[in-house]
């Protein structure tokens, strides 16, 4: 089935309220939002945010995220170390949840956004429906990666006992939180309509 595209008819859907506007109008008639056929410089911005996130994700996994001391002895743990600790303690469910939120979801996000960028740059017509569905999936699951940041914040504000023990956040969790924020921004700056654009439309547009 051949589906008509709004751009071919000189129409733009408002990104704030969804109203169909005539492209020449400049701003949405209903809400005043400036109209843009595609998110400006979407591919360049998304690449920049994705690479920055990838760069921060390395120290986030190498550096400790939390320091705990009890009865005079202290130890630091990394994200993966925390997963392993839960696993050894017999809390397999929790180990799996943290592994999915902190390792699997970010990795899948890096791969999916990278794939979307490369295939859109090539104006590929491969699996357009599935690529759009993948985009919606990472939009939906991305923020669950903040789980570890919230756990560290909760544990560190609670475990503040004299003599018995204390817990303190370490810089790894800051890198991790920033990496998650950047992957979310990367997903937001990508324009899924680029998946559907034909090469001719791209040349006339902003690319």
């Amino acid at each position, binding site marked *: 089935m051949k589906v008509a595209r709004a751009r071919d008819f000189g129409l733009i859907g408002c990104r*704030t309220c969804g109203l*169909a506007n005539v492209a020449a109008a400049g701003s949405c008639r209903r809400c005043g939002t400036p109209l843009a056929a595609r998110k400006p410089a979407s591919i360049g911005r998304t690449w920049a945010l994705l690479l920055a996130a990838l760069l921060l994700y390395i120290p986030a996994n190498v550096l400790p995220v939390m320091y705990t001391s009890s009865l005079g002895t202290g130890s630091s743990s990394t994200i993966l170390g925390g997963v392993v600790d*839960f696993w050894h303690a017999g809390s397999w469910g929790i180990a799996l949840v943290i592994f999915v939120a902190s390792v699997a979801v970010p990795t899948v996000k890096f791969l999916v956004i990278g794939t979307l960028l490369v295939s859109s740059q090539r104006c590929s017509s491969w699996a357009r429906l599935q690529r759009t569905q993948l985009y919606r999936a990472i939009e939906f699951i991305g923020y669950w990666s*903040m789980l570890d940041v*919230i756990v560290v914040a*909760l544990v560190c504000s609670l475990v503040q006992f004299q003599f018995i023990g204390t817990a303190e956040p370490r810089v790894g969790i800051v890198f991790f939180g920033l990496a998650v924020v950047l992957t979310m921004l990367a997903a937001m700056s990508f324009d899924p309509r680029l998946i559907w654009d034909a090469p001719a439309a791209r040349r006339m547009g902003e690319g």
Partner: protein
Amino acid sequence: MSAPGWVICQYCDALYRARALAPAQLARCASCRAVLGRGGRLDAGRLLALTVAAGIVFVIANASPVITLSAHGQFNHATLLQAVAAMLRGSDAAIGVMVGVTLFVVPLLQIALLAWVLAFARLRRRAPAFVPAMRVLQLIHPWSMTEVLLLGVLVAIVKLSASLSVITGAGTYAIVALTLLITLIAKRDTAALWELGGR
């Protein structure tokens, strides 16, 4: 100039003629399967009641301790705001900002702005500053993380109960209720509100 009678998919730019939808009917994009619209009226009165309930639960969730710990006669508890404030004061300000924004500022703004917009929608009117309110709601929507907090509380309870005794209380249950209510109100499709009145 607008083009009335047309619906455009936000994900793939597909163009459709607008159709009237029956209640509970869902319109999906033929090329990318995104949801284009839902039938039925938005019940502003019911949604407002849920929003007010969310506001009350939000106050409880933030005023009472999320978790209380006890060890050898010492008790420690933390409310969400205490946790955020402690981080902002210390060397962990970046974490304090992330947690404070996603778990306090954004949910609070969502509840307040929705209540504002819905209170007028119930009277079939557009609220003053309707457009900026809707724009802010759309902008902050991805950063609302109350449901992640709920999972985080569960993980923290499991982690801590290995070596300390963990006491849950009103604050813990308030987070469960808040997660449900925020899901009901803020994750809902409020597109129908745009149909109210003129500009």
